[in-house]
């Protein structure tokens, strides 16, 4: 496999950013990691994951859809779409790398979402294998191997060097663009590191969690479960879980009056919010119980029902770490599960 010494990472980043916009996870002042546009001197974060997931790059929190100019009774529609620039997201973890295939199933299904596709076409995902998974990790539950991430290309570290391999043509192009910095390397130590990582993954507290008893065929059984009341009773109805989730993709479309025109934009929305399904004449999800149920039913039942059994969760553990009241998909799965 091709490799580059870890102490030459700066050179690698410089080379990538010379031709394309590069985003890397980097440490913020408060200690949390965040994807930022690479600038000289920026260091790759050693944190396991960023607070915000990498979905931002393809499905940003807000984006302009279309502009309108209003003139008396007339309306002018202005298409504001522009071709995205080419960019590389470096250091995407296995869970986030998988999340893109889940988002693809929504946004690239007919009719294709051109806003998403535009960025997807221009973005190269360079994943990074995990070596230090945390207690909140349960990607294995969804068949993800943290030591062998997906993505257009993947990187692995053996502590000394960074090994890079391509998974598809886009990944190969990426490697070609930095070929001068890479040389062939021996992967025996890497294999040891990966084996060790896999051992740790097996020892994680959530390693035994399975999706065996979830899926599209359990729809009414779980929907009518009597556990929802207890599970949702302390839910604050905030959107933290939704907004840190790499696979949550619900959005709202809103208009903003700039004073000289209307901007129609879309933004992330959360099924946990009280107005999510509110209509002029009523709301089918009146209490937090229904909203809470919707989120987890979507991930564990509805999504697999519509997508050949694929679940709407990648086990990244962000909601486990960030929920203000520590209620999360793992607790829901354990409480709900009917064998």
């Amino acid at each position, binding site marked *: 496999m091709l490799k580059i010494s870890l102490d030459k990472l700066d050179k690698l980043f410089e080379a990538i950013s010379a031709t394309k916009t590069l985003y890397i996870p980097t440490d*913020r*002042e*408060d*200690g*949390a990691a*965040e994807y930022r546009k690479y600038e000289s001197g920026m260091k790759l974060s*050693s944190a*396991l994951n960023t*607070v*915000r997931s990498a979905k931002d790059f393809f499905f940003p*929190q*807000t984006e302009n859809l279309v502009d309108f100019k209003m003139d008396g009774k007339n309306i002018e529609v202005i298409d504001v779409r522009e071709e995205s620039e080419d960019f590389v997201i470096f250091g995407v973890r296995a869970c986030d790398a998988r999340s893109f295939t889940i988002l693809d199933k929504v946004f690239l299904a007919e009719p294709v979402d051109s806003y998403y596709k535009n960025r997807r076409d221009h973005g190269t995902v360079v994943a990074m294998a995990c070596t*230090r*998974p*945390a*207690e*909140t990790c349960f990607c294995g539950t969804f068949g993800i191997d943290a030591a062998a991430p997906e993505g257009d290309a993947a990187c692995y570290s053996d502590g000394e060097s960074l090994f890079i391999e391509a998974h598809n043509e886009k990944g190969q192009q990426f490697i070609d663009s930095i070929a001068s910095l890479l040389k062939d390397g021996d992967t025996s130590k890497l294999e040891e590191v990966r084996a060790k990582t896999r051992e*740790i993954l097996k*020892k*994680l*507290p*959530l390693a035994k969690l399975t999706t065996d008893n979830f899926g599209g065929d359990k729809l009414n059984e779980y929907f009518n479960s009597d556990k929802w009341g*207890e599970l949702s*009773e*302390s839910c*604050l*109805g*905030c*959107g*933290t879980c*939704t*907004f*840190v989730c790499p696979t949550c993709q619900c959005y*709202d479309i*809103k208009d*903003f009056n700039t004073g000289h025109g209307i901007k129609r*934009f879309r*933004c*992330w*929305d*959360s099924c946990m*919010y*009280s*107005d999510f399904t509110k209509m002029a004449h009523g709301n089918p999800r009146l209490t937090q119980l229904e909203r809470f149920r919707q989120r987890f039913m979507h991930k564990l039942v509805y999504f697999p029902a519509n997508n050949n059994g694929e679940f709407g969760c990648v086990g990244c553990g962000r909601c*486990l*770490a*960030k*929920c*203000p*009241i*520590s*209620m*999360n998909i*793992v*607790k829901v799965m354990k409480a709900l599960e009917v064998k």
Partner: protein
Amino acid sequence: MQEAMINKAKQLLADGVVDRVIGWKRGEFAYDITPAVFTSAEELDESFVYDDFTAANVSKYLVKESRKDGKVLAFLKPCDTYSFNQLVKEHRVVRENVYIVGIPGGPKLDAEKIKAKGITGILSVKNENYTLKIETVYGEESMPFYEAVLDKCASCKSKKHVIYDELMGEEGDVLDSNRFDMVEKLENMTAQERYDFWREQLSKCIRCNACRNVCPACTCEKCVFDNPDSGIENKAPADSFEENMFHIIRAFHVAGRCTDCGECSRVCPQNIPLHLLNRKFIKDINAFYGEYQAGEDAVSRAPLNEYKQNDCEANIVHERGVE
């Protein structure tokens, strides 16, 4: 303490004094504790927990819980009693339906601070003489207790319970806290520095509304930010202006009512020091209109609901501090 609380709760349930207990429920890990309602001794035995991670302020749940049938037992830490008292003042809780047992408070721990030390794979956390012994999948780790204390506890304002039906343990005192230090530090910066500081902080906001929804003072039936007719309803910070606006208005709506319980900062997934905005208002209110602690009593008028004829003029802002 946990044992004593469970016993107290069981006894009050058995005596028919209360029908339900609101407390904290054990999670998957050492730190992921969820506020919960318990209705039986079995449930209490099974999962009731009170330890270094039970930081959540349960007083806001009482807005809903106290309107249900029967009486609910609430274990309130000193800071929680301020929030509850403020809710009593605002007629948001039905006082008769709540039986309050005051319990000693923190300092409580912040799992994020442990993780920020690079300690991951946490399996258990033990406090041994104010050194945390942390068992992880990567081996044993340790760190000083006080380095993992929640920000809100590090600047604790009071160990005193301002409202309770019964007290467990010793009553504490109002503390001479250092809670305005950071506000003061910011005040002494230049406007540009302050602007840069807040831009850095507020640009992290993902508008998850956790700060609003957890806040015991935010109990409007319909928030202005959820009301499409308000003209300022917005779900996402589409522009830096909206980031600023949301946080100014959020803090302003609780100005004079915020007890400084620190929940907003605790729950922020992006670690924005939101309590600084609330403390700025508290500090200003103290300076301009006299010392005032929201929630300290259930009768006094909130500073923004009253006035004095000789109040300072608004332009005082232009005449003090650093430009």
